[in-house]
């Protein structure tokens, strides 16, 4: 399906991690196309029918995006960390472009200005919220922030995240749970218990 083979994507990720900025521009359409394929599949699924909404789709999209077994880098962990960063860049750019373009040239989205809507954790606005708050967490605790980056933006499982970061799964789970509470508090402010 890809005009470029996964191998090319792997090379592009490699280039990007070496500081070649043009690589991201070439990666973006490939990721968006994969996103679009996934989107079309969601459209094709009955919304009420959760049983056929497979979380496996995301993994599958990811697997196709990159020729994982052929990543022959000495430092695979670094490669995975880089791909999570790339995904974050691309998805955040995508979310921004969607939210801003809807309101016409450069207008800020209401959902960014107003108090975020707690009920909708799965909107593009909430994706941008995570990105923003995660930047602040990274300044305090880069390691905990990376857990979120790998899990949420990279789509990696607890076990994969543990392997990539050289941590135990239990540590990843603790950091993940803590960071989520921290991000929520950062976004929605202190609530009096």
């Amino acid at each position, binding site marked *: 399906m890809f005009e470029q083979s996964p191998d090319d994507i792997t090379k592009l990720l490699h280039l990007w991690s070496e500081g070649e900025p043009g690589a991201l521009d070439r990666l973006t359409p490939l990721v968006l196309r994969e996103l679009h394929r996934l*989107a079309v599949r969601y459209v094709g699924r009955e919304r009420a029918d959760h049983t056929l909404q497979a979380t496996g789709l995301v993994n599958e999209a990811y697997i196709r995006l990159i020729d994982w077994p052929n990543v022959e880098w000495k430092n695979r962990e670094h490669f995975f960390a880089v791909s999570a960063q790339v995904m974050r860049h691309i998805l955040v750019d995508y979310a921004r472009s969607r939210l801003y373009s809807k309101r016409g040239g450069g207008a800020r989205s209401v959902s960014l200005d107003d108090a975020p809507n707690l009920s909708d954790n799965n909107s593009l606005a909430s994706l941008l919220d995570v990105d923003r708050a995660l930047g602040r967490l990274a300044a305090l605790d880069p390691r905990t922030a990376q857990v979120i980056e790998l899990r949420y933006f990279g789509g990696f499982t607890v076990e994969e995240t543990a392997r990539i970061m050289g941590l135990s799964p239990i540590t990843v789970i603790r950091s993940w749970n803590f960071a989520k509470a921290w991000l929520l508090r950062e976004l929605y402010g202190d609530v009096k218990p």
Partner: protein
Amino acid sequence: MSPERLDHIQTLYSDAVALSPQERAAFLDGACGGDGDLRREIDSLLAYQPRAETYLDRPAFEVAARSMADEGAHMLVDRRLGRYQLLSLVGRGGMGDVYCAVDSRLNRLVAVKTLPSYMARDQEHVKRFEQEARAIAVLNHPHICVLHDAGYDDGLHYLVFEYLVGELLSDRLSREAQSLPRAMDLAMQIADALAYAHELGIIHLDLKPSNIMLMRSGVKLLDFGVAELRYPDALTSSEISETSSAPRGRKPGTPCYMAPEQLEGGETDARTDIFAFGAVLYEIFTQKRAFPNRPETVSALRSNPPSRISDSRAGVPPSLDLLVQRCLALEPSDRWQSMPELLSRCTEIRSTLSESWA
């Protein structure tokens, strides 16, 4: 805040979360000592703990794809697929989106159903898809929605059906109860359509109230054979299981109406439709689902057998209870074996229901 401080907060937070809410206060009193700031910090994080549990439960990639999906469905409006100009989105369902469209050659309204684009793997698949569609297009019956055309354009497979104006059975049932004779008439029309298609070797595989349209002229079954067509045999079963959490090889359908063999990805035949027919019948008479809990497995079906129709509806003859029960038998060999046999039983029961039962 120093990294060490945050690390300490994280440790205490995690330890506190592992305790019951009653134990937490005592634990934190001890652990924080007199450090009021530390205590407040942890308490304010714990306040978000319940929400944090489900927060970020979908990866960003999926969030973006879903939002794209929501927009994408509307983007096809005003576009052309083949000789069909799409006018408006009229429905979204398991088999794809449905648009009202104009057939520019015959200048008439049609319903265009788009299918997920991932089906277009290669020329071989496209050919196979069109073959399957031709098989379905053979169906010509007053109670089956006619398939006019099938095509592939701009990365999308689509099916073109006759344009129907009516009310879905699912909507009708949520609105009002059907009198017993009326309910039986609907059942007979559905059975008649199924019997006809089965004779031609085509099974529906996704019969449910939202696939049945009520019109002035009677019922119309929608999406006949489309469940099968979406995943023609050329799509290997491994491909299906990769893309869904359903058991390997399972043909897509709707769990509330799926026979055990379909749930398990086994062989399906006319008796699979008979099971679904029983579930639909149950719903027509009771306005309740026979299997309300989205059974995922056969053991779930077995452990929650539907109650009798007569339990929720007065005036239902025992013969109808038995008929539905036999449709819903878990073993295909325990069900009615053919639709004509079932249809004639329906006809017999109908004759015992005078209009006064209504």
